[in-house]
């Protein structure tokens, strides 16, 4: 390079360069979030930054950000800190998950503790909700937020707030909504996960509660930490508000991607078909070693699910709550299905209030998003007794009846062993329009067991007998002989009795058979589900 040429191209101080340079400086500043110190703190808490999380959520290089240059604005004459509030504490935009567009609202705890300010909520998050619904694409919330920014929200202009939940309700059953719990989610904002379709929670770092610890102390005097009150040990084990407890942010976001892989982008599409390589006509080996023929013996139904559906495709939801019913997604010949299975290992598989509630919500999610349902039945019935009546089991059980009855997606029922009482109904018995309903050879379909039936029907006869014990035993055997799947099959009330090894093929054929299913029902504004 000669002296004169270097001289000739020296940078000119022009307006263009200065203006573009300012843009890049602004971008750089806001991409740096709350600064190095806050980011260190975030990492020390075992959490990733909002931008690291987004990097994990989306396919590489697909994230498009809207509102990077936003910042806090003075509200009602208050102070504002435009320099200290990059992106106003929430990163918004869209990217691809396995090549499909997904929208994100991700709170940045390094900026004013991820608190929800006027700009972030009323302009940024609201825009994501508007566009995602307009384009019919899923929304993922990455929640790590102290809640409403009180300095902007206190006072009676609160009157104009809160429509985000109304938006969520409008989106419900139209686009999938995921609320990933990666930090605190205090106060009213806990209704974001409350209304979402899927809520994974990171152990230790995440929590949600309608009132944070300080508010609780002021309101009721109770001394409790946010974690004690609303950590995953509460919501994934006791309350059922959370779905799956995960170890850290990385696992959480991987699980969000996995969840979305089973769902369509919206209710107007079919779920994606995946090539799993597992032959649809594969005979299911090993069921004889999993399921005892003795109907009183327990076993882990998840082993049946894993054996029947495509290898590695089982994704259980709410695995640590209401464990007497198992729900989750799997693939059947590459097709997404929702599995509802009784779990004899827990409470004998008897249904109770929480189990009915868990199943009902899952069934409705599948029905909303065109995901066929497969019921694997082995149910001794609904729990009976004074305890469950006080809980309102009739009301909760009715939710499951309602959901199963209402679902118009393809529905396949396999009666493995027990099918007793209303348990048979809610597990998609004959009356609930199964597209295929089959039983294994040792299935027991009956309103109740033979012992209970004899007590009710033949009580007087037994009491009057010379040898009541022998008479009772004889009557029990008479009734027991009536409990056989061949009686139901002989009446064509069920479609077939199958060898358990045929279960996979029968399920896949049953779903295929119902591909063009169309059910017309009388017009109504909406039903009145016993919530």
């Amino acid at each position, binding site marked *: 390079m000669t002296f004169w040429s270097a001289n000739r191209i020296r940078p000119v101080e022009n307006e263009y360069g200065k203006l573009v340079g300012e843009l890049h400086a602004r971008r750089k500043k806001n991409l740096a979030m709350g600064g190095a110190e806050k980011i260190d703190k975030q990492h020390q808490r075992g959490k990733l930054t909002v931008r690291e999380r987004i990097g994990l959520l989306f396919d590489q290089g697909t994230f498009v950000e809207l509102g990077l240059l936003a910042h806090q604005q003075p509200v009602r004459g208050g102070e504002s800190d435009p320099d200290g509030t990059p992106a106003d504490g929430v990163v918004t935009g869209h990217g691809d998950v396995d090549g499909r567009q997904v929208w994100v609202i991700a709170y940045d705890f390094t900026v004013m503790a991820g608190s929800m300010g006027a700009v972030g909520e009323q302009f940024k998050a609201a825009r994501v909700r508007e566009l995602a619904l307009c384009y019919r694409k899923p929304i993922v919330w990455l929640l790590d937020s102290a809640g409403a920014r009180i300095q902007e929200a206190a006072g009676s202009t609160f009157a104009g707030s809160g429509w985000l939940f109304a938006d969520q309700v409008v989106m419900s059953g139209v686009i999938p909504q995921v609320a990933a719990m990666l930090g605190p989610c205090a106060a009213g904002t806990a209704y974001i996960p409350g209304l979402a379709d899927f809520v994974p929670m990171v152990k230790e770092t995440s929590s949600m509660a309608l009132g944070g610890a300080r508010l609780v102390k002021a309101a009721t005097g109770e001394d409790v930490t946010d974690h004690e009150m609303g950590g995953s040990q509460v919501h994934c084990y006791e309350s059922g508000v959370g779905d799956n407890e995960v170890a850290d942010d990385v696992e959480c976001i991987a699980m969000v991607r996995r969840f979305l892989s089973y769902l369509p982008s919206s209710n107007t599409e079919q779920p994606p078909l995946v090539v799993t390589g597992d032959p649809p006509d594969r005979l299911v080996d090993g069921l004889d070693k999993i399921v005892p023929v003795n109907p009183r*013996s*327990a076993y882990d139904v998840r082993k049946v699910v894993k054996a029947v559906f495509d290898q590695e495709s089982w994704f259980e939801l709410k695995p640590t709550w209401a464990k007497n019913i198992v729900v989750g997604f799997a693939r059947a010949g590459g097709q997404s299905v929702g599995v509802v299975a009784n779990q004899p*290992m827990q*409470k004998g598989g*008897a249904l109770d209030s929480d189990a009915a509630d868990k199943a009902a919500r899952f069934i409705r999610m599948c029905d909303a998003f065109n995901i066929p349902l497969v019921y694997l039945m082995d149910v*001794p019935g609904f*729990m009976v007794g004074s305890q469950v009546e006080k809980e309102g089991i009739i009301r909760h059980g009715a939710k499951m009846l309602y959901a199963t009855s209402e679902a118009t997606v393809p529905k396949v029922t396999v009666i493995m062993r027990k099918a007793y009482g209303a348990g048979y109904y809610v597990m998609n018995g004959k009356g609930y329009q199964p597209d295929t309903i089959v039983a294994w050879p040792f299935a027991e379909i009956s309103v109740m067991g033979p012992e209970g039936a004899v007590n009710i029907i033949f009580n007087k006869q037994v009491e009057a007998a010379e040898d009541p014990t022998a008479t009772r035993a004889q009557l029990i055997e008479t009734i027991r002989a009536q409990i056989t799947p061949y009686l139901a099959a002989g009446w064509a009330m069920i479609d077939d009795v199958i060898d358990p090894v045929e279960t996979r093929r029968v399920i896949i054929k049953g779903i295929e058979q119902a591909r063009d299913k169309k059910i017309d029902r009388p017009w109504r504004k909406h039903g009145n589900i016993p919530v």
Partner: protein
Amino acid sequence: MTEVKAELVGSVWKVKTQVGAQVAEEDELLILESMKMEIPVTAPRAGTVKEVRVKEGEVVKEGQVLVVLE
């Protein structure tokens, strides 16, 4: 000390452990009978059985303490 409680109302069908026994996590402590099912009650963690508070044939309530581990 860990209290192992009945997860549902039922009767004690079989007691499969005794005071002083060393148990591993998931070991069967006793079997309840309820809703026509034999429902195993397993140890939530490893430990020593300090107390067995129920007898075979006894009816137990949901939440009732069956076994205490140490």
